[in-house]
């Protein structure tokens, strides 16, 4: 047996990639990545867009009828016939079919209000007590009803869920999940602007003046000062900055030639 130790030519080593340009590979992978993002985006947006058509508000209300019962199980939350009447009046101006919304009032001191699944709206005494007039109460109610009209609770949740599932499929990278979170915040702010627009239309339709909306935002600003809400940058918040919401609401009011006649009706829900 002859012993030989041939020196292998490294440039011919089959174990190493001899393609000196990695740019092509990078370009191909970035291309795939963009294509994947585009497809995922199209798929999710198509599902979210079609949701109001596949699941009607009446069906959503039937599915989530337990939400109302659950709310009423809390002794501090009550149905308010006067508020319900106001909601039904506003619904006419918002092109919402009759019996789309159930309004509840919570005795909680938190200055807040929210809309949730099944057309349920909860207003907190903490906010109602601070509002100066009926017009501003109508503004916050119409804002929440705007969320119901646009089916925001369901669309927002479905969208976040779908994007989170896709993000999870691509691994547990924190950056990816942070991106998904930031995007959901951006979407939330978009929904707030649209609900604000609904509120302006409804309040102007009902009272011939957009002053109620402005009064609502003024109240929100005093609440923010009172609670010393940390000045988060807008891109980290679920809601746009109140100053920008005022500007946005006034732009819409001007577009529909609404007056700013000061609100005059007393706030019937104020409890001193």
């Amino acid at each position, binding site marked *: *047996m002859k012993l030989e130790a041939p020196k292998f*030519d490294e440039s011919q080593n089959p174990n190493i990639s001899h393609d000196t340009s990695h740019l092509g590979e990078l370009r191909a992978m970035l291309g795939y990545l963009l294509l994947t993002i585009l497809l995922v985006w199209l798929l999710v947006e198509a599902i979210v867009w079609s949701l109001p058509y596949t699941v009607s508000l009446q069906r959503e209300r039937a599915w989530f009828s337990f939400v109302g019962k659950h709310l009423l199980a809390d002794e501090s939350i009550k149905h308010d016939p006067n508020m319900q009447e106001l909601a039904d009046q506003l619904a006419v101006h918002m092109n919402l079919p009759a019996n789309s919304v159930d309004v509840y009032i919570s005795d909680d001191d938190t200055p807040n209000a929210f809309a949730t699944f099944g057309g349920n709206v909860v207003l907190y005494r903490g906010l109602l007590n601070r509002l100066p007039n009926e017009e501003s109460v109508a503004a916050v109610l119409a804002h929440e009803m705007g969320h119901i009209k646009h089916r925001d609770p369901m669309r927002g949740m479905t969208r976040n869920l779908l994007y989170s599932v896709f993000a999870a499929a*691509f691994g547990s990278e924190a950056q990816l999940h942070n991106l998904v979170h930031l995007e959901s915040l951006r979407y939330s702010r978009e929904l707030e602007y649209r609900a604000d627009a609904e509120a302006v239309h409804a309040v102007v339709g009902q009272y011939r003046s957009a002053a109620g909306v402005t009064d609502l935002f003024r109240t929100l600003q005093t609440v923010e000062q009172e609670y010393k809400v940390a000045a988060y940058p807008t891109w980290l918040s679920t809601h746009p900055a109140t100053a920008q919401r005022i500007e946005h609401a006034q732009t819409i009011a001007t577009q529909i030639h609404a007056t700013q006649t000061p609100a005059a009706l007393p706030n019937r829900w104020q409890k001193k």
Partner: protein
Amino acid sequence: MYTMLITNLEYVPDRRIVKHLGLVQGSTVRSKHAGRDFMAGLKNIFGGELKGYTELLNESRDEALNRMMRQAHQAGANAILNVRFSTSSVAAGAAEIFAYGTAVVLD
């Protein structure tokens, strides 16, 4: 493809080793795509064969063998003796398959 004798034996019965050419090796590091990882994640819940990963390692072994044979061919060998496989985990979700053996010329 290379016509080459690959064996785990140190000697081939009834054949004489004419030339010993030293160690030849082939290696590849691979990962599956996110879709396969997602399926494997689901399989972790319900149990069963992770077919995607079986397929991945099978492809990797073939590739490593192929590269080893190419190196042996470059050295002028017609057989690789005492072939072994080895594996190491390089990064999360990526494994190296490594094949090595002794390149020889048989008469």
